[in-house]
């Protein structure tokens, strides 16, 4: 199914033409360059009682990610590994098109793409989360809560997850399992998403751009310049060259975003 839940009725034919015309002149509806993301603000520790949390504001898109860490049984085929579980809620307060109820395919895709980025980029050293081999390990729940939807949830959620993980403590003492310790985060795989508008690739599309993009590509790269995950979306196509271009731009932007995520902002919104 197409992404109609995200964009239904958001934009008129006239606006659509206007955005295309701007693109042909090298600019965007909010004045950004093609490879420029919106202002990014990350507030770590927004929810003090969660084991880790971060509020991400990417332009007007607002996502809160909270981490809970609890002991649990390991999967039978990975007795020596902690568990990562990622969930996304498109809370209906975030958009008139989000409805209450169980997660739809958009929420499922969002959760899985964020999960793959963290998992395949080995962001967390899961082997350090074993309490007793084969019996008891730490389960890391990453819960993504979308609060205000103005496009590009993949990136906002991915940044929130990384920032929240980076700031999370394993609550060992609460369970009488020794001292609390910092969640072992070893890599920072950063997703960057591009929308294809006409023949142009624009970074971090906002809602208006997302509504008229023919295709979407998210590339997750880590601090070593390796690629950890990709996800193409929508019913348009990319050429080989376009994909290569997007990968390169994603790496560049990813580097800058990683610095912001690793920044020492820590505290509540004022």
């Amino acid at each position, binding site marked *: 199914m197409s992404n109609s839940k995200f964009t239904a009725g958001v934009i008129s034919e006239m606006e659509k033409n206007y955005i295309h015309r701007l693109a042909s002149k090298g600019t965007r509806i909010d004045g950004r360059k093609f490879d420029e993301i919106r202002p990014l603000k990350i507030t770590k520790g927004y929810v003090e*009682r969660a084991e880790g949390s971060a509020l991400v504001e990417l332009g007007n898109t607002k996502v809160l990610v*909270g981490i809970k860490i609890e002991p649990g049984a390991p999967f039978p085929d990975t007795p020596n590994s902690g568990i990562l579980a990622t969930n996304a809620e498109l809370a209906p307060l975030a958009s008139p098109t989000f409805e209450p109820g169980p997660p739809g395919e958009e929420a499922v895709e969002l959760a899985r793409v964020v999960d793959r980025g963290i998992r395949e980029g080995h962001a967390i050293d899961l082997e350090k989360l074993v309490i007793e081999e084969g019996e008891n390990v730490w389960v890391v*729940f990453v819960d993504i809560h979308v609060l205000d939807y103005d496009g590009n949830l993949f990136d906002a959620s991915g940044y929130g997850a990384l920032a929240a993980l980076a700031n999370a403590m394993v609550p060992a003492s609460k369970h009488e399992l020794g001292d609390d310790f910092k969640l072992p985060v070893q890599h920072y795989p950063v997703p960057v998403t591009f929308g294809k508008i006409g023949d142009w690739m624009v970074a971090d599309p906002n809602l208006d751009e997302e509504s008229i993009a023919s295709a979407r590509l998210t590339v997750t790269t880590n601090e070593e310049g390796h690629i950890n995950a990709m996800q193409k979306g929508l019913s348009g196509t990319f050429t080989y060259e376009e994909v290569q271009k997007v990968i390169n731009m994603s790496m560049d932007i990813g580097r800058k975003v990683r610095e912001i995520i690793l920044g020492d902002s820590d505290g509540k919104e004022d």
Partner: protein
Amino acid sequence: MGMKSDIKLIDDNGLRIDGRLPNQLRPIKMKVGVLQRADGSAYIEWGGNRIMAAVYGPREAYPKHVQEPDKAIVRARYSMAAFSVDERKRPGPDRRSIELGKVISEALESVIFVEKYPRTSIDVYIEVLQADAGTRVAGITVAALALADAGIPMRDLIVGCAAGKVDGVVVLDLNKEEDNYGEADVPMAILPRTKEIALLQMDGDMTYEELKAAMDMTFEATQSIHKMQIEALKRKYMEVE
């Protein structure tokens, strides 16, 4: 209410475990207009509670069979983020959330001029991002601001607050420990102008006199919370001008 415990909730000086007097509120901060997409929105910090509310509507009610020919329907949805509580909560509504959504909807409907918008719904989403006892009354208080921010005509700016009983003492605005180990909780929602009661629940064990004392305390507190609401709205709309 009423889990057994050895915790002393009121100390020898009559102070509570967070240092408050019996009739003292926890710190409260409010902000109006915190979300872009919603028709109206607001945020409240009340003790350790962090709650966001958004309003959509009046809009055509969907599915159609829920439409009322002579009025808007008010649908409040109360939900808690998975990470809002000590032990992770499974996403999705549980029976508590369903009940709270129902009584909050009824309380909010009491102040809205629903007859102005037949066949529509006014949807109020209350998201508890961090929970610290009293979420339903804080949720009503912040929902009132979001409704005002959405320009929904109301006959009053409704206010929620709770009182209760801990260690045999009637106290205002229970925190988490008092809620867990106390003897009674009385959440209320009040129309501050007319002093009508729009939400009233109670559980625990109280004499008639204790209950009246708790209600009196709440009535008084709602007046000061109401002032904070007005201030929060002014801050938003002064910035705008």
